């Protein structure tokens, strides 16, 4: 038990030293472009990977260990909820910020079921919203 704990602590310190990795997951490449620019403009330090296919993003999580994932809900291959379920199943702990054009209270409520979700933002994002996300 102690071994595992020390291992994960070590890993966390490692990831803090490193430049954080950020995933953008949205089937619209333009949205990913906008969000990438916003993050750059906000002077957030991070290596950004954008995915228009959420399945590809899922496969890359364990390898690239992103600190943050900006996740769209409405996508054709798998939707955001399925993406979150997959993360849960595979014990992937990256922080997720849902970024959607739906402002439905039902969706906001559902987001609370996933502990890795730390934010719920409606599109379009702005520098201000980006700063809030990453300064949490």
């Amino acid at each position, binding site marked *: 038990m102690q071994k595992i704990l020390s291992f994960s602590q070590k890993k966390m310190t490692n990831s803090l030293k490193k430049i954080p990795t950020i995933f953008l997951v949205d089937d*619209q490449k*333009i*949205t990913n472009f*906008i969000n990438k620019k*916003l993050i750059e*403009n906000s002077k957030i330090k991070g290596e950004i990977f954008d995915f228009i296919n959420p399945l590809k993003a899922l496969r890359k999580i364990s390898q690239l260990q992103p600190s943050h994932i900006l996740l769209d809900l409405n996508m054709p291959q798998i939707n955001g909820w399925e993406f979150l379920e997959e993360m849960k199943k595979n014990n992937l702990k990256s922080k997720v910020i849902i970024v959607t*054009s*739906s402002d439905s209270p039902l969706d906001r409520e559902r987001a609370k079921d996933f502990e890795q979700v730390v934010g719920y933002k409606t599109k379009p994002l*702005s*520098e201000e919203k980006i700063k809030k996300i990453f300064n949490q």
Partner: protein
Amino acid sequence: MNFNQSKYRITYEAFSKFSSKLSKAETLEEVSKLTLTNLKYFFNYHSISIKSITRNHQLCFSFSINKADFYYEKLGLNIFEKRLFERKVPIYEELRENDISTLTNFDLPVLEEAKIYASYFDYGSTKACVSIISDENRKFGMDDVEILRLLTDAFVSKTRQIRLKSELEEKNEEFKNAIQEIDVKNKQIESIVDTQKAIIKIRTKNILDKNKQLVSILQSISHNLQEPLSRILGLLDLSEGVSKDEFIVDILPYLKESATDLDIIFKDLVKKNAEDIKLLSKENDE
């Protein structure tokens, strides 16, 4: 006790028995039979007819020595009855052979010095005419008038009671029928109302379903339009901090693409919703 006195006593005893039996009679048939069997104890006669007349109808009873008959008659008073109605004075006179057949329906034996006695009685709304044919062999005399009066009183009162009772029963029957009819109509109305309620329920449900469909159409419209619109807004937001060249190279093509997407989605929605609305209104017509 002389002959007359004993004759009276026997007659009144007979009448008293008749009277008590009469009070128990329930039909005109019974009254007719009972009267026929008792008449001979009251006085001598060959034939007797009792007509009770009201505004609406005329009830005739005829008796011979051994036959009885009764019927309702609309009109038709014989000459003696007409005289009685005019003068209201009893008639006691000799009867011509030819007149006999007009006074009775029965075949009478050959009469010797036939006589008629006829009398008028007034019971308010009911009037009565009684006529008796007698002769030397069966003689109705003036001393029989008193018992005839008693008989007529009892007889008319009883027949009137039976008639009123049957009228009342008829009315009751009509009344029951009317109530039944009202009942049937009420049930018809209830079933019509129930049908209407069911129809309203179904229509209301249809309308609610259509409303739900419309709401979901609206939600899909707003969601589909929001996505490219938010891209355009995001790009515009970005463009504020970039150079002209960068804008033209990096942002403008995306703006154009997003605006085109918006246009496509918008046109598609307009087309699709026009079809949906057509479909909805068609369903409503059915």
